[in-house]
């Protein structure tokens, strides 16, 4: 297990009139080398959870373990953890602070005091991993980039730290459908090519159902459901009640339930839905063969 969260409580803006209890007894585990999606409606505590994992927020109760070690106990080096586990924030503007792309991406390597040649190599590699040509983007001003490009630069900045895991806060928010597909493909590639552990949050299962190995559903600071995307989707009606967007296929399956109440709704692809429908319409299969035979 990369991370273990045990019964964590955290109140944001504690001691002020704006105090919000963000995490209330949250317990979960994040396995290594997998993609874990944390799904929940707004105000469920997703972003707070990510910052708590990195030790940026110190829980008022409970503990966070990184490879079995409590991150708030004395011998543990929090700064070292933050270099090994990167985070990409929801809005890329929240992350970029240098003037040019090259300077921003190289911030981490320079912090690590790497040799200039090595740092340059890392920057080039990271920028190209996110699909931005190094020579073209190195001297561009971060303020002049488009939203999608900024997000990529932010990811490159984290990749340049050579992390073991990256946490993504709502990576697909505010992207157009194509940008969303590209980003999800990038996440998949990071997992397979760089053997990275990936944790992402989302308010919709539509994007992450195909991508994630494990889904954790968060509501009001607590875990309400967890398991493989299929196990979680089996509770489609509860998810809808929590205002979580479902994949289109699941929505269709859920709609068809008014006709066949026993229809499974944990389907991920059109083919699966078709198979499921055929189960209920025995003559449909024969009709189809008739149509396709001549």
């Amino acid at each position, binding site marked *: 297990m990369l991370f273990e969260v045990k019964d964590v409580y955290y109140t*944001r*803006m*504690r*001691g*002020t*009139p*704006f105090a919000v209890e963000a995490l209330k007894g949250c317990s979960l585990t994040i396995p290594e080398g997998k993609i874990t999606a944390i799904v929940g409606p707004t105000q469920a505590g997703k972003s707070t959870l990510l*910052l708590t994992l*990195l030790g*940026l*927020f110190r829980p008022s109760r409970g503990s966070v373990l990184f490879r079995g070690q409590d991150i708030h106990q004395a011998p543990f080096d929090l*700064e070292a953890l*933050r*270099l090994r586990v*990167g*985070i990409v*924030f929801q809005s890329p503007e*929240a*992350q*970029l*602070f*240098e*003037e040019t792309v090259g300077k921003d991406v190289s*911030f*981490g390597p320079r*912090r*690590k005091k790497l040799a200039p040649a090595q740092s340059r190599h890392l920057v080039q590699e990271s920028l190209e991993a996110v699909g931005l040509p190094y020579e073209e983007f190195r001297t561009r001003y971060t*303020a002049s980039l488009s939203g999608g490009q900024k997000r990529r630069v932010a990811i490159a*900045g*984290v990749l340049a*730290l050579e992390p073991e895991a990256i946490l993504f806060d709502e990576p697909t928010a505010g992207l157009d459908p194509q940008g969303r597909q590209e980003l999800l493909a990038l996440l998949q590639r990071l997992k397979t090519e760089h053997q990275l552990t990936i944790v992402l949050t989302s308010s919709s299962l539509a994007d992450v159902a195909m991508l994630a190995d494990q889904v954790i559903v968060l509501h009001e600071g607590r875990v309400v459901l967890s398991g493989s995307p299929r196990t979680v989707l089996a509770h489609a009606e509860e998810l809808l009640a929590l205002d979580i967007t479902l994949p289109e296929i699941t929505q269709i399956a859920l709609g068809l339930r008014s006709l066949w109440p026993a229809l499974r709704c944990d389907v991920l692809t059109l083919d699966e839905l078709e198979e499921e429908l055929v189960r209920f319409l025995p003559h449909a299969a024969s009709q189809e063969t008739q149509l396709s035979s001549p």
Partner: protein
Amino acid sequence: MIEISRHISFGQYVDNGSRLTRLDPRAKILCFALAVAAFTYISQFAALALCLFFCLFLQWLSRLPLRYVLQGMRMFISFLVILYAFQVLFYTSSTQATSVIWHWGVLTISWEGLMHSTQVDLRVIFLYYLTSLLMLTTSLVDLADGAEALLRPLRRLGLPVHELVMVFVIALKFVPLLITEVERLSIAQATRGVRFGRGNPWQRIRALSGIIVPLFMSGLQRVEMLSTAMEARCYRAGYRGWRRSKLHALQWAGADSLALACCLLLCGLLVALNFVSPF
């Protein structure tokens, strides 16, 4: 460093429906001006004690957690302590002979220096408290409306009152925005290996310097966004023969008159006490 806004309450508005938040902003600003004038005038400890009681009374009325308000003053007070040291060490009085307690080179600690500096700093603390309480209990719009209504007579002299008030209020309310911005930048840098609040003072200052430039950049961007948004909504400060209308017209109520009367009474008491009191 990560949740600094927790510790800085200056410029925040807490809408808790207390008596103070419900007062007419004009009454609050008038009372505030009166109290500031009186607090600045007094020079006796007995009068300062009365100020303390007045502040405690306001604190009770505001229903704000005392810890929150005091926490907000922590940074300010640590700054004041440094000032206090300088004041005491370099105190020179032209009128009276000083009773020296300790002397070394140009540095002197005298009884009068201690007393005088304590008074000045107590006054500054009370003034800071009044200012932050005014902002904690008054929203941006109310503050602007109230100030504008009070300064309206100056328009006859050709002063652009509305614009001036607007600029002033925006400047005040940028404080919490800038604090959030510092928070954002320090999180972004902490996640990429910067250590805040560690190491010797020089290293700490170095770590902070990386925040200043991006802070200015984003501050300017925000200003640009704000002005675009104002223009997009056809904001006009007002020109000849055209007046802005208000969604919430200010209404002077009995409580406002009472507050003003109490404040006048307090000022009178403070001035009188200042005359009478032997110390």
